[in-house]
């Protein structure tokens, strides 16, 4: 007996989002739904969760056809969903969040907190979730918040649980714990749909992998019989290169020289605590580390966006400690910020306007205060073509583009000029395989053209694939330096603070 979706078709104006998609999940089975952004995974799951209605097709549970007109229907039918962005009230406690909407009431309609608390404790113990029922959501880490979402779903007696990109927000350790929880749910006979675009995770946890592309199911695979390469090819529809093809580096002069850098975070704690390193022309230095070990502050310190407490940053002969971003731009520094939408783009602006966001002030884009839109348009058109930005035009708001294409807008803007130093933070976070491959190629091309490149990524795979030299940050200090062919376990240990 199982949850079966059959022949689901969903049309949006001008787009076939789901085209005759069929999918089934049995109790105790983990099905990984793999696909790039825009492949139709989210649409399918939103149909299953009652948020959209399908134009064609049926949903049956244990042979009985379901009409899911709303998420309430879906919950009643035993379907639960853990969204990528949690639906929690930050100032409420864990217990309050779990029972929100179906509070157990006692005398006079008062919430019976004891019963509520007990419910949370029971579920927490049953699946080994280790959550303090009285903690405020805003005080607990993201990984624990996710477990609260799981308790919520279980409290509503879900038999089938959809996880939408559950590992995207987790640290590597949290990912491990999450996989443990998944096993527990599985052992308890829950059917699980695990949406992801991370190939390794799909192979590791799934019983069955379903690949979607362009709104269709394009293939199914068993983890034991497939490889990441096969899955990637299936997802993208052509053969993709998971390794980054590059010659060995031939480093030249030191371009970026960071000495004893100390930078405070927004709580005035030393986030970067005496970091020193060099980046030479023609090499890629990768900074690895679990997120939150000072990477953000390091980059902001180097790029003049956060005041430096002590230490120095030099670029060749020039002291650029606390230099203004505009000065760095003129010195030939490219910066791909880690928060694409928060600090890399103005989402309300068109593709065109974002293309010139940091170079609008000078020729050929403006003369004095006069913008030269004609020449700007020309440049933007060229860049869109040259950097393969998939957009209906340069005048559409950049917010309507997919994540990968938004990132390509930034890369185009930052790379389309003479560049001596590239600083790329999380350059491929959350984007599709095709765009990742493209952006990696561009970064290597900049290196080969003689630029010094500093790449920061919380994906160790990415750092290892790109870098010619790897520096591991732990608690704001350099915890080790490695060659790209070093053992993953050694780097992993350094990331956890235990020096090899």
């Amino acid at each position: 007996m199982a949850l079966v979706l059959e022949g689901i078709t969903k049309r949006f104006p001008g787009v076939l989002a789901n085209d005759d998609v069929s999918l089934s999940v049995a109790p105790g089975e983990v099905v990984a739904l793999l696909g790039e952004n825009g492949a139709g995974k989210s649409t399918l799951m939103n149909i299953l969760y009652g948020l959209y209605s399908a134009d064609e097709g049926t949903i049956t549970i244990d042979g009985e056809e379901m009409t899911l007109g709303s998420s309430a229907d879906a919950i009643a039918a035993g379907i639960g969903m853990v969204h990528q962005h949690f639906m929690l009230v930050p100032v409420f406690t864990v217990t309050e969040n779990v029972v929100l909407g179906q509070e157990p009431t006692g005398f006079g309609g008062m919430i019976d907190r004891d019963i509520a608390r007990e419910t949370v404790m029971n579920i927490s113990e049953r699946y080994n979730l280790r959550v303090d029922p009285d903690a405020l959501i805003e005080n607990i880490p993201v990984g624990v918040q996710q477990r609260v979402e799981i308790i919520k779903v279980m409290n509503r007696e879900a038999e089938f649980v959809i996880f939408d990109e559950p590992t995207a927000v987790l640290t590597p350790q949290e990912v491990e714990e999450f996989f443990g929880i998944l096993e527990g749910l599985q052992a308890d006979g829950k059917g699980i749909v695990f949406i992801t675009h991370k190939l390794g995770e799909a192979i590791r946890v799934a019983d069955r992998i379903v690949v979607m592309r362009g709104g269709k199911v394009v293939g199914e695979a068993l983890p034991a019989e497939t490889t990441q390469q096969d899955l990637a090819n299936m997802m993208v529809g052509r053969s993709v290169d998971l390794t980054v093809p590059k010659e060995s580096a031939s480093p030249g002069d030191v371009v970026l020289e960071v000495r004893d850098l100390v930078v405070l975070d927004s709580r005035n704690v030393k986030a970067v605590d005496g970091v020193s390193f060099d980046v030479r022309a023609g090499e890629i230095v990768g900074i690895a580390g679990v997120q939150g070990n000072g990477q953000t502050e390091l980059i902001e310190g180097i790029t003049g966006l956060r005041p430096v407490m002590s230490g120095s940053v030099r670029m060749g002969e020039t002291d650029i400690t606390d230099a203004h971003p505009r000065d760095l731009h003129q010195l030939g520094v490219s910066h791909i910020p880690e928060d694409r939408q928060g600090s890399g783009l103005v989402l309300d602006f068109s593709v065109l306007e974002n293309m010139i966001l940091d170079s609008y002030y000078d020729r050929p884009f403006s003369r004095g205060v006069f913008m030269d839109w004609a020449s700007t348009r020309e440049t933007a058109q060229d860049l869109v073509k040259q950097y393969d930005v998939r957009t209906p035009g340069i005048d559409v708001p950049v917010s309507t583009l997919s994540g990968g294409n938004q990132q390509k807008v930034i890369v185009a803007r930052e790379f389309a000029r003479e560049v001596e130093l590239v600083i790329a933070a999380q350059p491929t976070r959350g984007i599709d395989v095709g765009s990742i491959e493209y952006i990696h190629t561009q970064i290597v091309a900049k290196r080969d053209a003689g630029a010094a490149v500093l790449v920061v990524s919380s994906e160790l795979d990415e750092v290892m694939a790109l870098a010619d030299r790897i520096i591991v940050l732990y608690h704001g200090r350099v915890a080790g330096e490695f060659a790209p062919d070093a053992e993953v376990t050694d780097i992993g240990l350094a990331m956890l603070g235990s020096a090899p």
Partner: protein
Amino acid sequence: MTDTRLPEKEPTPPQRSPMMDRVTGVGTSVARSLVLPTLAMLTALIIGAIIIAFSDIEILRLLFDDPGAAAGQMVSEVSRAYRALFRGSLGSVNSLSESLFAATPLLLAGLSVALGFRAGLFNIGAQGQMLMGGLAATYVGVYVSLPGIIHIPLTLLAGFAGGMIWGGLAGLLKARTGAHEVITTIMGNFIAVFFMQWVLTTGIQDPGRNNPVSAELVTSARLPRLFGVDYRVTIGLLLAIAFVFAVHWLLYQSSIGFEFRAVGSNPKAGSYAGMNVAIVVTLAMALAGGLAGMAGANQVMGLEPYKATPALAGAVGFDAITVALLGRSNPVGVLWAALLFGALAAGGREMQGAAQVPIDLVVVLQALIVIFVAAPGMIRAIYRVKGREEKPTQMTTGWGS
């Protein structure tokens, strides 16, 4: 491996081209963009009619005895009021002149608030900036004597400068200390009023008066009337319209406007891209203040008795916020909104005089129009207009941003 293309991205609804709107100033589908405001106005008039019909206690009494007669009276009451509203706003050359006359300061102050919105700033201080601008203009208009061709621009410039200093101060406070402009500009309004009350009892006071009223502006500093002495509308209107184009140019054709809009929409991205957010904020508030200051100058240079009082701004500085919202902070939109509000103000006076419907109804109508324009979803639902979902108008980012 026959398929070599990447999957297309998520469905995106067909978009109008915002860039073209910005560059040309006119939407590619003007007619369509007028549908919702027109329906909003219609709805407001219908609700206004209901309010008029039910606000006469005599008719309400009659409603129980003779519903038919009461209905008839309601209809005649409403039609009398709305005919007066139309007559007073568009019905004659003089009405037209009165509408344009009332629209002039609204347009300048509306542009001030709209410019602020575009730079992510909520300028509630147009009122105070008008006072300061009016005061500065009064000094130049009373004490200086020059040929009109020089004196008028100089007086206007003084108005601009007065407002600019007052607005720029709020901008500087925000840039330097993070003080929120909503608070500083409101406080600025209070300070401006009391400052006026004090200054106008000093040297510049009208001789022979003991309340705060300034002396008369010399003739060479007064704005000439546009259509002869019988009609009150002045060349201030042309100036205000010129500023519609100037602000439009500034926002969409200059690199300064590019910075205003970028910082207004995402200050963090602006600073990452090398813009100096502090300078942008200060400059935007200063220019916004300058525009409001010109509106204030218009109030002493353009209408009898050509004197400054602490009440010279009336409620224009606050109505300007509504005008800017109604015009969606687009300079051309602000022009239409100011004309509409000017017409309602002129018509409202006629309505009060001829039909004994209180002028407050005009305020209700204005409020209703703005509510319906601000909530396009409601109008779409009422009239079943199809179209893409619009984002609710969010003009500024949150508190403390």
